[in-house]
C-alpha cells in the first residue's frame, strides 16, 4: 500500500512536470522595429519624457478580423525600439503625443529582421530660453513659449515644473509633491487671449521651488494645450547641483 502511494505520487508529479515540456508550435517574436520621432522645427528628436505616449501599430497581415492596435513606447530621447514583434505587415501612427495630429498613418510597413521607421511631427509648442536660477535652497525656472502655428491651436492649459533626482525627468518621472505641482501656472486661455498676436510669449517664471542641500536635480518645464491628450511639450533637461 505504501509503495502504491509512493508510486502514485511519483507518477503524478512526473506527469505534472512533463507537461511543462510541451514545445510551443510558434517561434518567439524576434523582429525588431526602431526609429526616431523628429521635431519638424528643430530636426532633432522630439523632447518628451519616458513612455508618455505611444507609436500605435496595427498588424495588417492578420486578416481574420480587425486587429486591435498595439502600442510601442517612446523613450525620453524621442526614439523607440521594440525587438519582440512578430514578422508581418503593419500600419504605424504616432498617437497621443504633444503635436499636431498626424493624420497620415504609414501603411503596410514590412517588419522583417530589423526595420527602421522614423516619423516627423509638428509640436504644438516650443519652450525656449529655458533658464534655471538657484537662490539658496530655492530654485526658479524660466522659459518662454513659442507657437509657430497658432491657427486652430487648442487653449493653453498650464506650464509645470518637473524635478527629478535621476536623469529621467518629465510627467512620467518626477518628484510628485504639492510644493512643486502647486507651483504650476494655470492658464486655460487661448493663445490670442494669453499672448496676443505674437509668435513668442513673454517670460514665464515658475517657483520658487524648495530643494535640498547637497542633492543633484534634473529639471525641466513642460507646457500643454487642451487637445484630446493634454501631453506636455518640454524644455531640455538641465542638471542643477545644490551646494552643501
Amino acid at each position, binding site marked *: 500500500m505504501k509503495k502504491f502511494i509512493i508510486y502514485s505520487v511519483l507518477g503524478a508529479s512526473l506527469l505534472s512536470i512533463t507537461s511543462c515540456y510541451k514545445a510551443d508550435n510558434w517561434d518567439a517574436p524576434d523582429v525588431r522595429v526602431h526609429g526616431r520621432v523628429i521635431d519638424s522645427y528643430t530636426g532633432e528628436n522630439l523632447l518628451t519624457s519616458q513612455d508618455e505616449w505611444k507609436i500605435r501599430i496595427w498588424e495588417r497581415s492578420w486578416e481574420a478580423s480587425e486587429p486591435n492596435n498595439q502600442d510601442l513606447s517612446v523613450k525620453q530621447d524621442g526614439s523607440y525600439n521594440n525587438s519582440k514583434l512578430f514578422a508581418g505587415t503593419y500600419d504605424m501612427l504616432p498617437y497621443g503625443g504633444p503635436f499636431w495630429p498626424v493624420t497620415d498613418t504609414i501603411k503596410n510597413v514590412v517588419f522583417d529582421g530589423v526595420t527602421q521607421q522614423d516619423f516627423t511631427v509638428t509640436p504644438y509648442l516650443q519652450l525656449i530660453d529655458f533658464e534655471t536660477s538657484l537662490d539658496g535652497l530655492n530654485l526658479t525656472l524660466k522659459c518662454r513659449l513659442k507657437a509657430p502655428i497658432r491657427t486652430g491651436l487648442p487653449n493653453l492649459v*498650464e506650464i509645470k515644473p518637473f524635478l527629478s533626482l535621476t536623469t529621467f525627468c518629465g510627467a512620467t518621472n518626477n518628484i510628485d509633491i504639492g510644493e512643486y505641482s502647486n507651483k504650476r501656472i494655470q492658464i486655460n486661455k487661448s493663445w490670442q487671449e494669453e499672448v496676443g498676436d505674437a509668435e513668442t510669449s513673454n517670460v514665464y517664471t515658475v517657483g520658487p521651488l524648495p530643494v535640498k542641500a547637497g542633492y543633484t536635480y534634473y529639471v525641466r518645464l513642460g507646457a500643454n494645450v487642451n487637445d484630446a491628450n493634454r501631453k506636455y511639450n518640454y524644455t531640455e533637461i538641465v542638471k542643477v547641483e545644490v551646494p552643501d
Partner: protein
Amino acid sequence: MNKKLFVYITLLGGLLFSQCRQLDLEPKGILGESELFGTEYGVKMYFAGLYNRLPIEDFVYYATGKDDGYHNTSNYWDAGKNSLGNMSGEFFNTWVSVDNDGFAYWPYARIREVNTFIQNFPNYRQNYDDEDYNRLLGEAHFLRAYFYFGLAKRYGGVPIITEVQDPLAAPEVLEVSRDTEYDTWKFIHDDLQFAIDNMTDDTREKGRANKYVAAALMSRTMLYAGSVAKYTESLGFEATELATQQGLAGMRPDQANEFFGYAVAAGKIVEEGPYALYTAGYPDKATNFANLFLDRNSSESIFIKDYSQNSPNNNILRHSYDAMMVPVPDFSSQGGSQSNVPLDFMELYDMPAYVNPDGTPVRFDSRSDIREGMEPRMRGTMYFDGDELRGNTFSIQRGIYRTFDVKAEDIQKGVNTAPINSNGNRILGGRGWTTQIDGVTYTIAGKHGSFDDTGIENNAFGSAFIRKYINPDMALADAVFYKSEQPWIVFRLGEIYLNTAEALYELGRREEAFDYVEKIRDRAGAKVVRPAIDITMTNIGTINNANYPYSIEKSLQFIRDERARELYAENHWWWDLRRWRTADQVLNQFRPRMLSAYYVADEGKYIYLEEDNRINREWTASKQSYYEPIPWGEIGKNNNLLPQNPLY
C-alpha cells in the same frame, strides 16, 4: 449462475428502455414562460431578478470592478473600501485611486431578458386588465432604460437592441454596430416616456418602479445627456478621435437644450407625486438630515433598494456599511473605517472660522467647539469630535504643540521641517501614547486618531468621519459584516430638485432654478438660503481650484457645489465630474487637504490647522475617464463595435 445473470441483464435492460417514453414530460420544478408572464405574481418574480441587477451604485458597489462592480457575490464586505467615494477622491483613503477605464460593464444578457418579456408578454394579453397590462409593460421599459443608462454613461453610444436575437442567426445580423450617443440617449428617453405614460401612480412598493420613479430616472439621465452634449466639445476629441467624429462618443452643444428640457419636464412630473423634502425630524435640522437616510417612511424617498437579513448572502442584499465607515472598536466591531472627509469638501459648507483675521489660529476651549456655527446639513453628513454613536463619543486630535506663537500658515502645511514643528515643539504619536509636559501627562492623539504611526484603518485622517447612512440604533456588537440592512435611496426628491435646478439654469431660467436651490438650502439650515444670482463668468471650480476648459456663470458653479454638499457620499460626484467634463481638471493631482486638531499645552486651548495629507496621496483622472473603452473582448467578437472610444 449464468442463467440468473442473463435474467438480471434482461430485466435491467427492460427497465432502462421503459423509461424513455416518459422523459419528455414538463419538469415540475421549473417555471416556464406561461407561469412567469401569464400571472402578475410571475412577472413580479421575473422582474425581481432584473431589479437586483440594475446598475445602481449602492453600498455594495465596487468602483474599480472586481469581476462586476455591481454584483460581487464573494467577500463583498470590503465594498466600503472600494467605494465610488474612495475611488473619486470624495473620501480620503489610502486604498484606491481613480479608475479611468472601468470594468467592462456589458449587461446585454439582462437587456435580452427584458426584451424577451416585451416581445412575448402580448401573448398573455387576455390574462390582464388594461391597467395592469400597461403597467407591467411600462415597468419593463423602465428596467431596460436603466440598463441602457448604465451603458450610456460609460460608453456613450452603444448598440440599441430591442429584439430577442436568435443566437443561430448569421453573423451579419448578430454583429450589430454601435448607435450614436445621441440616439442612445434618445432611446433611453423614449423608453422612459413609455414607462411614464403606461405606469400608474401607485407608490406603495418603494422598491419597485412606478410613473414617478420612471420620471426620476428621466430627470437624472436627461441631465447627464444635456451636460454631455454641452461640454464634450471642450475636450478636444473632435480633432483626432474617430468615435467622436462619428457621434459615438459625444454630442453637439446644439443638442443640449433638448435634453435639459426633458430633465425639467420629468422633474415636474415627480413633483406631482406624493413626495416632500424630509422634515419629520425638525426642529433639529442636523438630526433631520441624518434621519432622512434612515427613516423607512421618509417622505423624500422615491425609489429605494432594500436589504434584508433574511436574504441569502450570495444575492448581496445585506451590506456592511455600519461596520466599514466608522472605526473599530468604539463604533464598529469588525473591519472598520478607511474613509475620511477631506477639508476640501468640508469647506463647501458654512463653517466656523478657525483662523483669525490676523492669521493666527482661533483658540477653542474644547475641540468639539469646531461644530458651533457649522451648517446643520454638514453635521448630519459627518461625525466630528464630540458627536456620539453607539454609546461612545468621537475623540479626534492629531497632536500637541508645547507652544504655538505663530500664524496658522507657518506650519507650512504640516511639514516636520517647519520651525514651529521642529525641536520637539509639535508632538505626534500613536494610539494611546502619552507625553509629559511640565510634570503633566497628556495623551497625544485622540482616541480615534489621528495616529501618526499607522495607516488610515480606524484612524482619523483629518477631523471627520462619514455619518450619512450610518444607523445609530444599531448596537455596537451588531456593527459587523453583512449585518446592515438600511435601504439605499436610489432617487430622492432632493436630487430631483437639484437636477431640475441645474437644467433650468442651463436653459437660462435662473430665478426658477434658484427656487429649487432655496428649498434645498432651507432644509439644510444654511445661513444664506437664496444667494443673489451672479452671472460673472469663471472657469475656476471650487474643489482643487480646478481650471475648467470652459467658462460658466458663478451661480451655475454654485448649483454644482450645492450638489456636492447635498449629495455628498451618495455616489453622484464622480458621474457629475464626468458629465461636466471637468474630471481631468478637478482631479488634476488633487491632493486632499486635512483639518487637524491640536492641543496647545502652554495655553490649555485647542487649535485647528489646515495641513496637506501626510502621505502625499493624490487623485488624477485623465481624459480617458469620460468614456470607458468598449470591452475589448466584445470587440473581438464583433468588429462592428469599432471605432473604440477616445484615447484607447
